């Protein structure tokens, strides 16, 4: 009984307020859609960036199933106004979403005879509602001021009203109405509020038959039009209108639709939006209309387990060989009967996902999907990107916002048929090359003057290597000297390498820093002349990633692909990791020892290699036996001290190097027994057992 009492009293209060409902918040960013399924008018709020809609009002209290159309949002008083067919008059909607009909003073016969408006909006200049109807013309209703509630015909507009428009929208700055016409082609038109003259500006739409029942602006002068039939939302730059070639967001479909939005509000990315991470050219960031999905925590439809961080839903169970079948495994969570997978692979490596590069087209998702697909013969061997999207929305394209689901982008490698990919140490792991750069004197053995993580990929066909790829990331620069980094392949003649087609990517962008060095017999590829140029240390930091807090964004990553002029037998290649070395940057001071020996900064004449790896012909052999160096080229002993210690080491993991000034044996106590046992069997995994406080952890 008590419950009933409360509901009756609240109903009374509700009715009292509905006569004088409160305005909306000041210029909200969402768009409003008024729809009338089963004759009940409802309001939906739409996040234009994702096409995501929520029901704001389940019943706007429309009478006799009559519609409210031509709705516009007034930034002058923060109410919505639209044409109410039940009273054949303008009506106001406040934040309770109830229709309040107004009484109009229709001052001329055209106004008195006008009815059935579908298209209307509130001017952004004055608080006036403009309504348009084909065959009747343009009309205006003053909302406030001395002429409040007056409705008048725009003289001469009847003869000009020849186009059937379903919505019109005011530009935020210009006092013009804009609209896109309906059908299989759509023209952008501009309507003068003074004369009703309609100017056709540009063809903006060609495609399936579309009725653009909801049309909006944002504060930057972009127009958004929503197709009733597909629910797709398109964005038009009014300053440079072009034929629409992509969907901005995938919104709800509707048989009838009317839209209103505060034209002075920006369209911003929604919080919690999931994005891909392929390079910009694929459409990744919001500004580029990147693929994006609305998320809602653990109940979100998603690929794999993780929705916001790691990409974990897709596994390429087989490699991708041109002209052959391949298998991909896709795991999905929170699927329904309407969860769809769409996927693209940039087969031609042009930096875009195109229609003929779609590999999954509305594939109905299960929790675990094992899918076979075909790599086209025309696919370009090399590194490229793929994009996987899951959503309850069908027909997603590689770009644009979807209300739910997830996007995951994966880099991948395409090879010719029959190519073996051999990774060292693995396709996701790195080995670490760590250097002490005080050569030819011993240093403090913190092994972090240069620390480079490296991965080597061999492309093998018929037991012949056809090209080599190197991928790396700079893990530390703990030195005050400047050093370059190079990769040498002992025994591989430089003439075997096609130096003109070495391809390098640094921090995600193509660069031309890497080159095949001339004047040396074995192929030697310079990766960087001066590694300090790759990073900036934070203020107060002398070094990079060897002192607490002294980092720089992410570790700079790089890759170099080295093609061969003719294939090289696998047996003729040296053992991993070949011979990666550092050298003194040209004309850069590298210690008194080198200056004393050579008479000036050593540049390429000073190299530091792994123990017992011979230097290149550019090296100054005067360093042999100088200071603490104990090399003996006649016995093939190089870069070792009298005690047999090295200036450079390979550690086969993404190694945590010692902190600045902490010696190797302090940070890794097991190293001593490892190094002194010739068999290498004692403490063989010494590098996995650090004194945690003495290594760089991050």
């Amino acid at each position: 009984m008590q419950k009933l009492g409360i509901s009756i009293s609240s109903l009374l209060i509700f009715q009292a307020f509905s006569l004088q409902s409160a305005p909306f918040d000041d210029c909200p960013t969402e768009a409003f859609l008024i729809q009338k399924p089963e004759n009940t008018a409802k309001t939906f709020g739409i996040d234009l960036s994702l096409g995501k809609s929520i029901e704001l009002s389940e019943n706007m209290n429309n009478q006799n199933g009559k519609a409210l159309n031509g709705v516009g949002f007034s930034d002058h008083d923060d109410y919505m106004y639209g044409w109410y067919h039940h009273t054949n008059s303008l009506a106001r909607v406040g934040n309770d979403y109830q229709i309040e009909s107004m009484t109009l003073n229709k001052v001329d016969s055209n106004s008195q005879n006008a009815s059935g408006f579908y298209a209307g909006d509130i001017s952004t200049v004055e608080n006036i509602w403009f309504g348009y109807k084909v065959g009747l013309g343009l009309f205006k209703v003053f909302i406030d001021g001395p002429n409040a509630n007056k409705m008048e015909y725009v003289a001469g507009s009847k003869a000009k009203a020849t186009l059937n428009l379903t919505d019109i929208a005011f530009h935020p700055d210009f006092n013009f109405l804009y609209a896109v016409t309906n059908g299989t082609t759509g023209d952008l038109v501009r309507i003068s509020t003074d004369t009703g003259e309609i100017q056709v500006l540009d063809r903006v739409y060609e495609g399936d038959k579309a009725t653009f029942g909801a049309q909006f602006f944002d504060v930057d002068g972009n127009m958004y039009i929503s197709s009733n039939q597909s629910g797709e939302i398109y964005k038009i730059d009014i300053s440079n209108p072009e034929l629409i070639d992509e969907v901005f967001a995938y919104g709800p479909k509707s048989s009838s639709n009317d839209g209103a939005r505060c034209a002075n509000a920006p369209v911003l990315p929604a919080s919690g939006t999931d994005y891909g991470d392929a390079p910009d050219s694929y459409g990744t960031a919001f500004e580029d209309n990147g693929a994006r999905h609305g998320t809602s925590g653990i109940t979100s439809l998603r690929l794999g387990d993780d929705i916001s961080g790691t990409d974990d839903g897709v596994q390429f169970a087989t490699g991708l060989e041109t002209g052959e079948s391949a298998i991909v495994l896709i795991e999905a969570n929170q699927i329904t009967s309407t969860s769809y997978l769409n996927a693209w692979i940039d087969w031609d490596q042009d930096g875009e996902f195109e229609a003929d590069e779609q590999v999954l087209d509305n594939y109905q998702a299960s929790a675990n999907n094992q899918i076979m697909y075909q790599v086209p013969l025309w696919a370009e061997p090399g590194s490229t990107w793929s994009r996987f999207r899951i959503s309850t929305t069908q027909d997603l394209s590689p770009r644009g916002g979807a209300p739910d689901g997830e996007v995951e982008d994966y880099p991948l490698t395409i090879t010719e048929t029959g190519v073996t990919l051999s990774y060292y140490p693995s396709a996701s792991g790195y080995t670490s090359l760590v250097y002490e750069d005080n050569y030819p004197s011993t240093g403090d053995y913190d092994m972090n003057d240069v620390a480079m993580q490296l991965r080597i990929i061999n492309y093998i066909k018929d037991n012949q290597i056809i090209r080599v790829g190197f991928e790396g990331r700079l893990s530390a620069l703990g030195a005050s000297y400047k050093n370059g980094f190079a990769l040498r392949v002992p025994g591989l003649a430089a003439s075997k390498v096609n130096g003109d087609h070495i391809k390098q990517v640094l921090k995600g962008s193509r660069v031309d820093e890497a080159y095949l060095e001339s004047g040396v017999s074995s192929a030697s590829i310079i990766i960087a002349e001066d590694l300090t140029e790759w990073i900036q240390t934070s203020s107060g930091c002398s070094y990079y990633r060897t002192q607490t807090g002294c980092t720089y964004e992410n570790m700079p990553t790089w890759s170099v692909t080295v093609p061969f002029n003719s294939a090289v037998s696998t047996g003729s290649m040296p053992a991993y990791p070949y011979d990666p070395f550092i050298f003194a940057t040209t004309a850069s001071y590298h210690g008194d020892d080198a200056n004393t020996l050579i008479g000036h900064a050593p540049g390429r004449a000073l190299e530091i290699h792994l123990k017992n790896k011979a230097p290149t012909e550019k090296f100054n052999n005067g360093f042999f036996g100088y200071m603490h160096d104990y090399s003996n080229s006649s016995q093939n002993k190089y870069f070792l001290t009298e005690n047999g210690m090295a200036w450079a080491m390979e550690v086969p993991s993404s190694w945590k190097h010692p902190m600045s000034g902490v010696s190797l044996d302090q940070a890794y106590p097991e190293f001593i027994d490892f190094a002194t046992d010739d068999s290498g069997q004692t403490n063989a995994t010494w590098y996995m057992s650090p004194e945690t406080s003495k290594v760089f952890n991050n």
Partner: protein
Amino acid sequence: MFTFNQKTLIVLLASALLTACGGGGGGGDSSAPAATQSTQTATETEAAPETETTLETASIDDIIIAEDNDLSSTFDLQLQVSKLDEQRVYLSVCENYQALDNGEYDVDYNGCIVRTSLTDSGLDMSLTLANHSDQLVAAIWYFDGNPPIYIEWQKTNVMEEQWSFEI
């Protein structure tokens, strides 16, 4: 809030630590990281004896490493695969995986060492592995809609590691 005694302890430990680590040379040591370490150490009252233990052990300057010892921490594994079946087969040798209760394997194909189609002549190649790598899985896919076959390798710690199988 620290008591007077706790403060004193931090100062003492901090100076002990600076003395212990200060001889490394190389120049440019910032005092900032050392100070951070000392604060961490202060919470563990047993830190001082550990420092003494380190001093008793041979240091890198004292040891002799054989001239031929190139300090490598890797080993080789000879992989030999014979192919009996004429069907197209794709082989991945991967190091990150999990054996599931149902006999299946959850393989991370992003972390593989070899990816190859198998020709009729099979495969014979030498893999270089880090000393801490002690198991691998081979996932063999037939393009007939069936799940793959998995074959595992475990390190045996013999001088020449070998892994041979037929498919």
